[in-house]
């Protein structure tokens, strides 16, 4: 079954964990204090993480571990690579929770139960602990809604239009900026562990070590924030429409992608990708249904995010000028 790690693991090298420390401290407290329903810290102690330590992990009502990703700033993109990764820019991200692992087939089947539009067994490479794949964007989003309903949250997606309500407190796919921020975990290198692609095998299932298949989630080393398989295994759907020029005009705070588009963003690379395609900044735009409902890609999966517990911040309310009240993150 899925690994049950009490604490987020740490890579051997921890480059540049820097710009998110204030948000990290705030969110560590928030995780301990404001978790909803039966969510509980996965760590032994409920003491807040100290500045500079790895973010905390909670376990949700449906038993899925999520990392409390701290608010902060990071440099998004890569100045020396693909054109759609430029211009690099400073981006500010509010705190959020992100699944520690890619959505596994067992978890997907549990969450899909009761929804007649979701198949319990859509994957090519079968295995309960392997990541679910052959997933179109709307099925991933639909699963997010189903997970929200099962845990008593407000679903984010309008199932008639696919539009995401960021003010809802339920699950959704990460924005492209959230994904890259979480993947980097404070780093500013090609990968979250540095820029030496020769080390990628320690952290990722990709073309050089996958044996042309997916692998159970969480078997490689995680990033500095305890997130597994951010590089490789399956590419992960993001909430954003893909726009190759978006970095040139997107907002600097919580960018959410273009309003309209024909393709959605995939991030992280997969078992069949080169090391270059697994880079933290690498962007891919893919048809949400792979151009045909009959077809699907066995290298595409997802993981969910949702607003940080108690995050009724100005951004969540749509008021971008106000600051989050610190009191909301403290123990009651």
């Amino acid at each position, binding site marked *: 079954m899925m690994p049950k790690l009490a604490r987020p693991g740490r890579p051997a090298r921890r480059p540049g964990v820097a710009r998110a420390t204030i948000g990290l401290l705030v969110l560590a407290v928030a995780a301990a204090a404001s978790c909803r329903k039966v969510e509980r810290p996965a760590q032994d102690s409920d003491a807040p993480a100290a500045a500079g330590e790895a973010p905390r992990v909670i376990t949700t009502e449906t038993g899925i571990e999520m990392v409390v990703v701290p608010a902060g700033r990071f440099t998004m993109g890569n100045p020396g690579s693909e054109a759609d990764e430029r211009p690099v820019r400073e981006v500010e991200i509010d705190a959020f929770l992100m699944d520690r692992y890619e959505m596994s087939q067992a978890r997907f089947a549990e969450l899909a139960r009761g929804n007649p*539009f979701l198949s319990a067994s859509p994957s090519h490479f079968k295995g309960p602990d392997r990541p679910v794949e052959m997933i179109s964007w709307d099925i991933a989003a639909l699963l997010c809604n189903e997970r929200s309903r099962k845990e008593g949250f407000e679903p984010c997606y309008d199932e008639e239009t696919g539009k995401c309500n960021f003010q809802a407190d339920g699950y959704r796919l990460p924005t492209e900026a959230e994904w890259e921020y979480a993947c980097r975990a404070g780093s500013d290198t090609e990968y979250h562990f540095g820029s030496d692609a020769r080390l990628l095998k320690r952290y990722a299932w990709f073309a050089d070590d996958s044996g042309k298949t997916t692998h159970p989630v969480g078997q490689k080393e995680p990033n500095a924030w305890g997130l597994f398989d951010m590089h490789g295994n399956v590419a992960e759907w993001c909430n954003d429409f893909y726009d190759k020029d978006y970095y040139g005009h997107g907002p600097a705070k919580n960018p959410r992608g273009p309003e309209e588009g024909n393709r959605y963003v995939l991030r992280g690379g997969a078992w069949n990708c080169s090391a270059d395609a697994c880079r933290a900044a690498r962007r891919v735009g893919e048809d949400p249904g792979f151009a045909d409902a009959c077809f699907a890609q066995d290298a595409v999966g997802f993981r969910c995010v949702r607003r940080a517990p108690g995050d009724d911040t100005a951004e969540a309310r749509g008021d971008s000028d106000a600051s989050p009240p610190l009191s909301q993150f403290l123990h009651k």
Partner: protein
Amino acid sequence: MASRQHLYLGTALLTLLASGLSGSQLPSASADELSERLAALPAKIVYETYRDGNWELFLVHADGSHPVNLTHTPDRHELYPHASPDGKKICFVSDEGQGASKVRNVYVMNLDGTGRTLVAANARQPCWKADGTAIAYLKGESDEFTYTDYATKGIFLYDLATGRTEEHPNKDLHHLYNPCWSPDGKWFLATVHAGMGLRHGILAIEADGPGVYNLGIPGCRPDVSPDGKHVAWGPSDWALRIGDLDFSGSRRRVIGARDVVTSEKPMKIYHVDWSPCGKYVTYSRGPETKRMGRIPEIVGVRAEGWDIYVADASATNRFLRITTDGNCNKEPDWVPPGKESP
């Protein structure tokens, strides 16, 4: 009178629709000529349609005239009709119950809607043996209701004379959908998705043995021609293709493939079915939708704007729209002209 207006509207819309196609446009004179030829056909077409909140089965002439509701069952949904080789019976699925008790079952009935008989519970996608003595169907993968087409396990064979059911000898058949039985009775052709070690493919499956062959063609929903020599299928959301079945060697394959109908976003084309004479195919066409998980071509999923068409199998994009109300008209199947039962 209404049915004639129906026909004229369909013909008039033909040229307009053709303008949205990537293939050759059909002059209105050709549309009229095709309409006249279809009006003279003795075969009819049965399809599923959503009326007043309920799925029913409708029967129409090949040119779309004389529509008749075969079911009239507001308390249950009838879908996925397939006519017997003698044109006297129809097998279909029915979605019954609500919520956790909802289930999809396979039935057979007379062409006039009488004699409704349960073939199998928690079953789907039935098809006929060419001699009309048996119905093959797929069992649901789990007891829980789903619209997912490939959520199936195994092929089962129902003998109409005895009412007995046998499972196909190959017990590893899994995640198949849209099976059809070859006219010689030796093969099933079906799509597989995320099953049997395959990502996706169209398979030829021995009807009486363990053999399974990947035909190596992209797409889904194959249908074998009445003479057993050709196959029609959908290589994508935007095309219907026909090719020749080559089972002469050890490698089963499809050769000489060509598109018979093409389309462009947002109009999808699906559910191709050969006419009894082998000269035409019927299919459904309609817009894709943004409704999450509600894939319009899936059985039981509402598909507003979808209609039934008939195309000349010897040409490309030579077709006639035979329904125009857009009432989620899908899964057309030719009904052979009546003849004596075997």
